[in-house]
């Protein structure tokens, strides 16, 4: 297993070839990915601001991790299905979930603001690691359907300490299911550093389950694209599951409720700043002469425009009808839910009468 992380694009912006992960990528694709990272980042900033002005309950910043997210998002085929965490706005953007759609969840307006069937992304489970099981279950379903889709299961370094992730890997390996586990090792699980989660590189654990474990530079969008695509294709062709450990860094707080200065040193940031995914792609585009300042300025303007649009649509969003919460608990009517609905309805009526 490679101890050093696979890198296809250096922090200085030069392309590196890797024998196992050849990558043909057009200038158009490179510019698209640049734009995707830039928009994801701009939406991240706007979401934090919206939370700080009382418009969102919470936000989980993606800052710093957009490289692997955008790369992996592009590696998925339309029919593939992703099970993600709450810190995955890069993948959501690439799969066509606009920020104002995603943010309804963080505003507390709904439990699911996107259509999982349309975009092929499952709902978040805030219970860390549990969706790894859902991912493997889905992958086992694909095997029974006999299609050639594959599943991407995304979670963090901290999640690898959960029993659910362990069980998921055991099942995936035992059934040779078409699933790729993408661990974004952002060095932290809230305030717990990754050294506390694993004595060995997380990728090394994969060998024990009987699947390849590959470390990649998580701030390299091209490594994210090439390695995820290769392993998803391997999985869909019957090659079984694999694990990717993307080395990256959570540049922001864990959530808007968190204050990272309490547990980590600001001097860490400089190192990761050097490895920034957006900046390195920008350097690359400039180096190969496939983008100029006009292009970058246009992207920035587009980002600003989108920021304004999202702000406007979130601020104008009315509170939902509270009775909606009973609608999608089960596919079919359920006695207990109906009882709860009736009770809540009666409560609102009383409330209005007494107002």
């Amino acid at each position, binding site marked *: 297993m490679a101890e050093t992380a696979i890198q296809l694009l250096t922090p200085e912006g030069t392309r590196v070839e890797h024998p196992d992960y050849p990558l043909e990528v057009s200038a158009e694709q490179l510019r698209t990915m640049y734009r995707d990272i830039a928009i994801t980042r701009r939406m991240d900033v706007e979401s934090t601001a919206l939370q*700080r002005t*009382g418009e969102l309950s919470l936000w989980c910043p993606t800052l710093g991790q957009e490289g692997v997210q955008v790369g992996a998002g592009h590696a998925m085929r339309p029919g593939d299905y992703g099970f993600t965490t*709450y810190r995955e706005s890069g993948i959501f953007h690439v799969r066509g979930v606009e920020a104002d759609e995603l943010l309804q969840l963080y505003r*507390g307006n709904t439990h699911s603001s996107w259509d999982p069937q349309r975009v092929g992304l499952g709902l978040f489970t805030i219970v860390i690691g549990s969706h790894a099981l859902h991912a493997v279950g889905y992958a086992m379903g694909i095997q029974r359907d006999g299609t050639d889709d594959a599943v991407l299961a995304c979670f963090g370094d901290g999640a690898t300490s959960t029993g659910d992730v362990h069980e998921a890997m055991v099942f995936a390996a035992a059934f040779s299911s078409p699933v790729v586990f993408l661990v974004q090792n952002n060095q932290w699980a809230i305030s717990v550093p990754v050294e506390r989660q694993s004595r060995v590189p997380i990728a090394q654990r994969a060998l024990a389950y009987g699947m390849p474990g590959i470390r990649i530079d998580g701030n390299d969008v091209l490594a994210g694209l090439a390695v995820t695509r290769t392993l998803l294709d391997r999985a869909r062709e019957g090659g079984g599951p694999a694990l990717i450990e993307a080395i990256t860094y959570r540049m922001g707080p864990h959530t*808007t409720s*968190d*204050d990272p200065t*309490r547990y980590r040193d600001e001097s860490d940031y400089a190192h990761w700043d050097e490895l920034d995914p957006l900046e390195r792609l920008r350097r690359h585009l400039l180096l190969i002469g496939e983008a100029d300042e006009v292009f970058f300025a246009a992207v920035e303007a587009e980002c600003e425009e989108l920021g304004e649009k999202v702000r*406007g649509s979130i*601020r104008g969003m009315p509170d939902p009808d509270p009775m909606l919460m009973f609608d999608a608990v089960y596919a079919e009517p359920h006695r207990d839910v109906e009882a709860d609905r009736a009770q809540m309805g009666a409560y609102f009526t009383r409330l209005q009468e007494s107002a």
Partner: protein
Amino acid sequence: MTATHVLDFPLPDVGEGLTEAEIVTWRVAVGDLVEINQPIVDIETAKAVVELPCPFSGRVSALLVAEGQVVPVGTPILSVEVSSPAEPLPHSESREAVLVGYGVAHGTTRRRRLTSRAAPRPSAPAPVVAGRPIAKPPVRLLARQLGIDLALVAPTGPHGDITRDDVQRAVTPLVEARPVRGERIPVRGVRRAMAEAMVRSMSTAPHVTEWLDVDVTGTVRLVDQMRDHAAFAGMKPTPLTVVAAAMIHAAKRTPIVNSSWIDLPDGSSEIEVYSHMNLGVAVASDRGLVVPNVRDAGSLSVSGLARALGELTQRARRGDLTPADSVEGTITVTNVGVFGVDGGTPILVPGEAVILATGRIVDRPWVSDGGLCVRPVMQLSLSFDHRIVDGAAGSTFLADVAAFLEAPPITLA
């Protein structure tokens, strides 16, 4: 003049269910032009210091809260004069958040009106739950450190569990509210263990105590002989040595005294009669009562007993005993004679069936062979667990010990 409006910025809940924040530093002043998302103020909440961005662009017309002030969520903190009719801020009520990692702090949450039906914490303490009190390990540790018996603490936790606060409350009335009337001795360590053992014993085993006076002339003579005997060189044989030998001897005829009552998980019980005897000796140390035992005392010769008892009491006096010395005793003797008294009603070591107390040896008038004489007399007090030992067995054992002490069947070569 263009039409302008003044918009207020209410303090948002920047955490998950925070109720208030302190205004730490204003980054803008009245008259400043501000842009949307421009940092305007640093605030400190229970969780973090955060920077708030401005939701409007315009000119600052007022800072409504001074630095250093703590204000509730929802309080207008800043007024901005805007020229274009901006999207009005929807009425900002405190909202409860999706939890990603941090729980909402209890007691500080101002819930939205509609969610205020969440069951309130019971204000009256819930009834004390029977059996082992429920408390998390850190709470148990705290209770131990504070010397609080969890069985006596009223739980208020959501699952009938004892919380940290409950433990603190249990301390407060004892320590804080009571007027100082003298020295307070903390009940810890050996003292605490003794207290717990006594309570446990008295509340589980029905105690019966019997007495018997013994003419110990033979014992006193034997101890004198031992002191001069080569086999006991370097040892300090005492009447306790002979008492120990007497107990070993008497227990052979009445093995039930060397046993334990055991409650099984299925609700039934059984008596375990031991095939070995670990003879405990109650020793008063300066830290409290300890009961180290002589392992497998039944297999020792009299000189072996004398040596083992000597070592034990010496180590006890030096404070060298370890907890291991005091576990797995099967029967106990306590010499209350050293305190100048005759007897008492000794309390069983929890799990043991009998305990023998020996009184002082004192010359008394004694009737022997129909005539009055003066003899060294010692009183024996035997307590036994009446679940295990009935009156007949207890009396037989006591009489056998007495007979042994009156005429020890030991000849020194």
